[in-house]
């Protein structure tokens, strides 16, 4: 699903240049549930931005679902984001003055689906996360756990092949966190690839595979046990 080879990303500010990703290579297969771990500043967010086509990269190759994204224009990238990727953020990133239904409607509008099809998909997504009764509530009228379930429903509504999740349970209590993880596992079992960034080892343990990022590279924790262990 994701095949990155030698990805480089450098942020420049005036005369200063900071290498966020240095020769990062990884492969996530279709249907996998991969946990990405690493300390703050290790390059996890930059990796998510590039994986989600939200940021450009300065070197290397990136195949998303066998499509080479290098050199794609904004329209093609936006279409790929809309059709193949769902995002789940730690801080939910729901649009505050749209109700639940309209928040889920946003990606479908940009896909150009007609009204009946949009409604069918939204109702199905809300059913999956158990929030059918809350479709006309504003995000501010929901608990944190419910907001995250809305965010997951919004990620699911476009029936993407890949979900990128960043600390999806970071703002939730343990009960809610468990429910969200069970939901993500269920979604993964239905065939959706999930790449999840997390600091929590017990959550990462639910993934099929764990990858560690440090200093902008994927490392093998067995090969560099001390540093990785310290960092994690």
């Amino acid at each position, binding site marked *: 699903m994701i095949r990155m080879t030698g990805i480089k990303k450098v942020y420049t500010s005036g005369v200063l240049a900071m290498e966020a990703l240095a020769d990062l290579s990884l492969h996530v297969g279709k249907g996998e549930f991969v946990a990405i771990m690493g300390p703050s500043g290790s390059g996890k967010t930059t990796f998510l931005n590039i994986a989600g086509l939200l940021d450009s990269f300065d070197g290397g190759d990136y195949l998303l679902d066998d499509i080479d994204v290098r050199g794609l224009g904004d329209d093609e990238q936006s279409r790929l984001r809309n059709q193949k990727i769902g995002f789940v*953020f730690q801080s939910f990133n729901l649009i505050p003055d749209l109700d639940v239904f309209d928040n889920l409607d946003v990606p479908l509008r940009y896909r150009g689906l007609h009204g009946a099809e949009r409604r069918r998909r939204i109702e199905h997504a809300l059913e999956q996360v158990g929030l059918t009764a809350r479709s006309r509530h504003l995000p501010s009228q929901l608990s944190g756990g419910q907001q995250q379930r809305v965010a997951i429903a919004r990620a699911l509504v476009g029936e993407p092949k890949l979900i990128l999740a960043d600390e999806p349970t970071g703002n939730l209590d343990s009960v809610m966190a468990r429910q969200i993880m069970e939901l993500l596992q269920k979604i993964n079992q239905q065939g959706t690839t999930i790449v999840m960034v997390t600091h929590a080892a017990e959550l990462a343990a639910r993934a099929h595979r764990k990858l560690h990022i440090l200093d902008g590279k994927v490392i093998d924790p067995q090969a560099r046990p001390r540093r990785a262990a310290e960092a994690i």
Partner: protein
Amino acid sequence: MLAYYLQQALRSLRRNPAYSMLMMLCLALGVGVWISVHSTVASQARDPMPGPRNLFHVELEHDSGLPERMGNAAGIWGLAHLPDLLLSYRQVSELSRSQIPSRSAGAFSTQVAVQLDDGRFVEGPATFCFADLFALFEIPVLSGSTWARSLDLDPNANVAVVDHDQARLWFGNTDPIGRKVRLGGVEVTISGVAASDPQRLRLYHLWFGGGYRNGLFLPLGLIERMRARPVFVFGWNDHDGANAALRTLDDGFVHFWVELPTEAQRSAMILLLDSYVERERVSGRASAPLRPTLRRLDDWRRNAHQLYAGYRLVEMLSLIGLIASCLSLVRLLMAKFQIRAPEVSVRRALGASRRAVFLQHIVEALLVGVGGALIGLLFASLEVAMYNAALPDRTVDFALDLGQVASGFGVTLLCALFAGLYPAWRICSIPPAVYLRWQ
């Protein structure tokens, strides 16, 4: 997708109604002033004597060098070019001998000092003209009569017609006919009272002086005896102004109107003007080459209106105001769109292309334009009503018409589009990752 953009734009405007109203007011102020100024100028330019007519303005266009002689004063009073189209007293005297027009009239309007028969000195407008001016401009003579055509160019004529409203000011309710007034040492007897309708002459004549009434009508020939002429005619420093000189000078300050009901008369008049100009050239009498034109009344009105510098100045100022409003709206939209950057980043993550974000924000700017246009039109109608109330002596009633409302609406939308382009481009150019909160 347009319906969705419209829905989102409405939602965005409703989110902060006070700020939305501020943006609309900002645009409405500039648009309101611009529309009201254009409406008043257009009202001024509208023909107060509509319908078919056979009245033509004779022009011998030439380069008088007036702007150089008068300096800034020419531009300020709108005289920079109009006198270049008018005829000299000599030219009117010569051309009026032609039998081609059914009727003709020379006319020169100015301000004069008048001594009434009770000894009082008053200032009053005066039009030196031919007797046929009343018929050509449909100014009814209410009582008494005008003068015989033979007196039109007679320097010794001693007759005048007074405007009805002016007569009431000067003589109260007593009959003005037969009363004597003195102007520049010349005594004239009032022979008739004309209806008050300053629009007719004000709108078609260049008026050398102020006032809002027609005042006195006098035979054109009297200007020789009274030495009445605009200040620029003999140059700024020549106050002597010998009577004889007036007959030979080329400075244009007299309108010349001819009535030509048939095509044959019009053709003959054009031939006459061509041959007259040629004679002037050959004899070397004209100081500058003359370009003859026979212009219909309404054409002349539009032409004179376009040439009047005062209108252009006010229109330019209102345009500057409109541009300032647009620029203020750019700033307000920039601030509004910038605040929304995190939401835009989320939308980008969910699949909105740069183009979709740009269009959504342009639609919002246009919606501000629609609101601004409606408020602006309200402002414009209030301003036009205010101008009407503030100028009781205006020559026309100012009004908005459907064409101006439609063009005002279109201009407002264009302004909103212009104001929205840069902010919309900025917000759609921001990489989504910059404002996206992953954590």
